């Protein structure tokens, strides 16, 4: 992988587009120096966030690989890798522990693990109660449902696992791929929602209204518990009740743990990388997430704009290419049809790139300080180490490209 020393040592913000491509004031996104981020010894956690299907897992794996090749001891925590990628990384066994991935010639080490949320939850239960109590909890049907399908368990357990990996202090760098939820914000919200739920008064009231000893209990609450038992059946209430009493020793612990990990995200050494594709929905998601990070004071490294389609040349506009295609056919001769087809392919490509650039510009107008790195859509999907290496090169290579389109953009800035 080409991690250019120059790119690695230059602080973010010093790359400027080539002369001739002068930025329009206030519109140009700053470049993102991921090479510096992954090699900086002070950088300990990188969290990759974004809407589902934008390539978070691949981005996480590629960053992990680049860091390992740059000599760091890295672990990538993935949540739900595509099967072929997982297989090629030797991750087909889901054992909830990091495994070393053989990267020939790497100066550092690459480890990867796939989160098993139920197992992570079980481990917390076992670690925090006596063996009999733990068994009671693990056997409880309500716990089984909570630990395998409660909305938010995956996010909560991803945070928990991140906390454990960080506490072990075995790795220089932890790259986290966030769960494939509908909204990128779920990763930040879910752990809190879950601990609120487990610690909540509602669950206490429901299971032991007499102990709570509150006045309003008698009024509305009996109706509530009557409805719950009517709707869900009495057995569920008994299961919850048994679960809560068995879990009593751990209560409070949940919220503390969630809070501690959440604090970790605020510490220096953590950065967020937001991943999006050049599509309206994905960029809207990215926009929400960027706003949220800034509200919470969480450090954002920048936006990875994945699967862009920069053209191989920009000397010919879409309109001009369309016109030239007609002229070539009119002129006739050998290879005219083929050349015309090539010109049409180019016209389509320019139109697509213009649309992508337009979407990227809209994002930058709303978030002018957010650094951007575009990643060219490969002809195929990434599913082996070689493909990852190529993507790592796109992520961490120098900002300038042979085609003259800086890696902050899909098309060069229009000359005036």
């Amino acid at each position, binding site marked *: 992988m080409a991690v250019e020393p120059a790119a690695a040592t230059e602080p973010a913000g010093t790359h400027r587009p080539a002369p001739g491509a002068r930025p329009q004031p206030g519109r140009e996104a700053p470049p993102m120096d991921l090479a510096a981020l992954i090699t900086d010894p002070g950088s300990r956690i990188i969290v990759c966030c974004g809407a589902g299907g934008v390539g978070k897992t691949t981005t996480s794996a590629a960053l992990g690989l680049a860091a390992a090749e740059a000599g760091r001891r890295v672990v990538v925590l993935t949540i739900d890798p595509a099967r072929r990628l997982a297989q090629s990384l030797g991750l087909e066994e889901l054992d909830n522990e990091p495994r070393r991935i053989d990267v020939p010639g790497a100066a550092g080490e690459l480890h990867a693990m796939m989160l098993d949320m139920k197992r992570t939850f079980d481990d917390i239960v076992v670690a925090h109660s006596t063996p009999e109590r733990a068994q009671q909890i693990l056997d409880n049907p309500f716990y089984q449902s909570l630990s395998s*399908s409660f909305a938010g368990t995956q996010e909560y357990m991803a945070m928990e696992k991140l906390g454990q990996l960080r506490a072990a202090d075995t790795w220089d760098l932890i790259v986290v791929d966030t769960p494939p939820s509908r909204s990128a914000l779920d990763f930040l919200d879910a752990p809190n929602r879950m601990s609120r739920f487990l610690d909540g008064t509602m669950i206490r009231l429901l299971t032991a209204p007499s102990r709570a000893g509150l006045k309003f209990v008698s009024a509305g609450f009996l109706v509530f518990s009557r409805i719950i038992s009517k709707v869900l059946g009495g057995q569920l209430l008994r299961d919850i009740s048994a679960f809560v009493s068995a879990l009593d020793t751990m209560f409070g612990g949940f919220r503390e743990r969630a809070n501690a990990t959440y604090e970790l995200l605020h510490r220096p050494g953590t950065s967020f990388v937001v991943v999006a594709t050049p599509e309206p929905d994905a960029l809207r998601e990215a926009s929400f997430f960027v706003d949220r990070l800034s509200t919470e004071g969480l450090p954002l490294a920048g936006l990875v704009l994945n699967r862009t389609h920069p053209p191989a*040349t920009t*000397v010919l506009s879409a309109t001009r290419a369309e016109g*030239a295609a007609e002229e070539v056919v009119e002129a006739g001769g050998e290879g005219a049809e083929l*050349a015309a087809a090539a010109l049409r392919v180019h016209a389509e490509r320019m139109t697509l790139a213009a649309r992508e650039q337009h979407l990227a510009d809209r994002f930058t107008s709303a978030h002018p300080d957010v650094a951007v790195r575009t990643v060219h859509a490969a002809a195929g999907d990434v599913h082996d180490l070689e493909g990852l290496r190529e993507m790592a090169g796109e992520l961490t290579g120098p900002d300038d490209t042979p085609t003259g389109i800086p890696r902050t953009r899909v098309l060069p800035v229009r000359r005036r």
Partner: protein
Amino acid sequence: MSAARLHVVTGKGGTGKTTVAAALALALAADGRTVLLVETEGRQGIAQLFDTPPLPYEERRVAVTRGHGEVRALAIDVEEALLEYLDMFYNLRRAGRALRKMGAIDFATAIAPGLRDVLLTGKIKEAVTRREKGRPVYDAVVVDAPPTGRITRFLGVTAEMAQLARSGPIRTQSDGVMAVLRSPQTAVHVVTLLEDMPVQETADAIAELSAASLPIGSVIVNMATEPALPETDLRRAAEGGLTGADLAAALGTVHLPGTDGLAAALAAQVVEHAQRWAAQDELRDDVEALGRPVVELPLMPGPMDVGCLFELAGRLEEHLRAEVAA
């Protein structure tokens, strides 16, 4: 596909399942039929597509089709569905409202993750079986369902609830829903793109759905593109056997800037185009191998609007007719 009255549309995120569900609803509503299009994920994607204000929890007409057909849309709100349910079975609507203020409804749907899906599928079943004056109110119901990763769990409510609610009305209700979902009046369609991961997820979803005895409909390949080159050139380019030299002579007949570098750059783009096309063609074989009826919908240039939806609906109508004939 058209023996079914309940059409459940799923697909990996980003494959355009909301668009396909909307187009399918339009196709089914042609010639004077009435179709309900149901949104389950609270995203208001249907309202966006039909360019209407956000949908309330109420069946609203969003489009009229030829021969006085119409599509109504409904965005199911889980809380409202629970209240409606309490009202229907227990006369508890007022108590329900008070509970909502306490946050108790939110809590109830949170402690039993399956409850949410039971309420959604219960509402869908109600719409499918609703009758007025001796005939069904809806000729068809189309559901913009959760993505492939969650579809089997969403539709497999009984299995989920059997674990939690071993008795009680929810259990009875979910058994009734399963009876409809597993019957031939239901078809689960999977939307995919000709890309590795969506095709893989489509295969996984079909395997899971069959294992759960849920009836599978068609595979809908969305955003399909046409190659820009003739077959032979395409194959040569895909193998990397096309260079700037192949284009230079013909390009030389017209005045273009920087012809040398230009020819090479154009050739590189053609090679990429051809390679993507070859990869898609391979995936097309994988899709055929799934053994389900397949229909391809073209990639629509520009933003999606109602006009585009009708165009896609036209393609789906042809597919529906072919399915009936077969």
